[in-house]
């Protein structure tokens, strides 16, 4: 299995690197966007590395280099990934290379756990297909970018795998660090608790371990606010991002109008279709996979579908879906006996990924 995970990593790293380099050579970059533009290429990073210095990657680079401060929005980002990058950058320079090392290492662990966990439910063949589906997903390149996707995926898969092995304390500990990586880590509490309860007639103290993801999120947030002196609430800190909550149908309707108002916007179209597809797949997850997965998927989807962004209504939804691994397991269960359809799905997904990645490399906002 290691051969598969390492093979996927090498193939995607090389493929994305080639696409990125070809893209910036064929179409020169315009003026960069984002809050930390001065960081792009500032340490003399070669083009092969600087094509990864985009959007949130720059926030994480900034945090890894100068750590958190009040009033500059950095506390909006959870601390585990920048902490690991900061530690790695002691021996690996420049910072963006340390980011890619952390991301790649996390991806290998995530991919191994993905196959290891999903083969328990759908068999080895479908588990491998599920891994290819998530990697080829249009927003799958975020698993290889200096973002938190791979690290969070590895930790959430680890929590589920340990819960499945009836190791509640370790599952809770894994969930704790997942909560220090992404806010949505808190959605692991209910599935971990359910996994524990369904294996016992009488719950014991280990049930409290299921609170681990929530504790991780709460403690890391408290640490960031107290250590920096950030007096604003996290809702106020997030206001510059322009998100607001609304019923899912309103977000979908606004997205539909946004797409056709612009004559078709590829990232938003992927977000829109991705969200609808995710809802359909979540029904499959509920019917065919262990219930703990449904307890994870539905609240996560509810939040993603209820959040409207100022720039584009469903902004970043496709990226948020990348870590929602049960959806890809359910999809692979559908496609595993239809090799032609599976190949076509992978091919179309990869083509869309190239389009979105090329756009992202050119400072277009994809997610």
């Amino acid at each position: 299995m290691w051969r598969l995970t390492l093979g996927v990593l090498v193939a995607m790293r090389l493929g994305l690197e080639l696409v990125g380099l070809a893209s910036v050579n064929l179409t020169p970059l315009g003026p960069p966007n984002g809050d930390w533009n001065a960081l792009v290429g500032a340490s003399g990073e070669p083009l092969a590395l600087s094509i990864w210095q985009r959007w949130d990657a720059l926030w994480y680079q900034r945090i890894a280099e100068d750590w958190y401060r009040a009033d500059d929005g950095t506390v909006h980002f959870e601390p585990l990934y920048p902490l690991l990058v900061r530690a790695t950058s002691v021996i690996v320079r420049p910072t963006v290379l340390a980011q890619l090392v952390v991301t790649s290492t996390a991806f290998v662990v995530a991919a191994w756990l993905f196959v290891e966990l999903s083969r328990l439910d759908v068999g080895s063949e479908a588990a491998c297909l599920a891994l290819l589906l998530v990697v080829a997903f249009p927003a799958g390149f975020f698993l290889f970018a200096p973002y938190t996707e791979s690290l969070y995926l590895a930790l959430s898969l680890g929590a589920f795998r340990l819960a499945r092995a009836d190791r509640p304390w370790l599952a809770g500990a894994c969930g704790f660090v997942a909560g220090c990586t992404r806010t949505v880590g808190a959605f692991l509490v209910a599935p971990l608790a359910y996994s524990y309860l369904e294996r016992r007639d009488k719950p014991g103290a280990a049930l409290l371990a299921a609170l681990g993801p929530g504790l991780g999120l709460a403690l890391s947030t408290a640490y960031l606010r107290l250590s920096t002196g950030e007096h604003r609430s996290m809702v106020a800190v997030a206001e510059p991002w322009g998100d607001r909550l609304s019923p899912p149908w309103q977000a979908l309707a606004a997205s539909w109008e946004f797409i056709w108002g612009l004559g078709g916007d590829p990232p938003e179209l992927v977000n829109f279709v991705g969200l609808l597809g995710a809802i359909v797949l979540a029904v499959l997850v509920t019917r065919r996979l262990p219930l703990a997965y449904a307890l994870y998927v539905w609240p996560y989807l509810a939040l993603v579908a209820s959040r409207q962004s100022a720039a584009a209504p469903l902004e970043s939804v496709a990226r948020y879906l990348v870590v929602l691994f049960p959806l890809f397991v359910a999809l692979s269960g559908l496609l595993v006996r239809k090799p032609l359809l599976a190949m076509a799905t992978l091919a179309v997904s990869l083509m869309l990924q190239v389009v979105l990645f090329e756009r992202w490399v050119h400072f277009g906002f994809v997610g």
Partner: protein
Amino acid sequence: MELRATGRLLFSFGLAGVAFLLYAFAAGIWPDSEALFRLCGCGG
């Protein structure tokens, strides 16, 4: 769904609710409820 499974579900979501309360407190969302109302589009 059997009663025991329903109980497990309710207990699991109850625990998740506790986790979100912990987070809301740590994130200062409670004292700053005005920002929360703005987020939901129902406040100035």
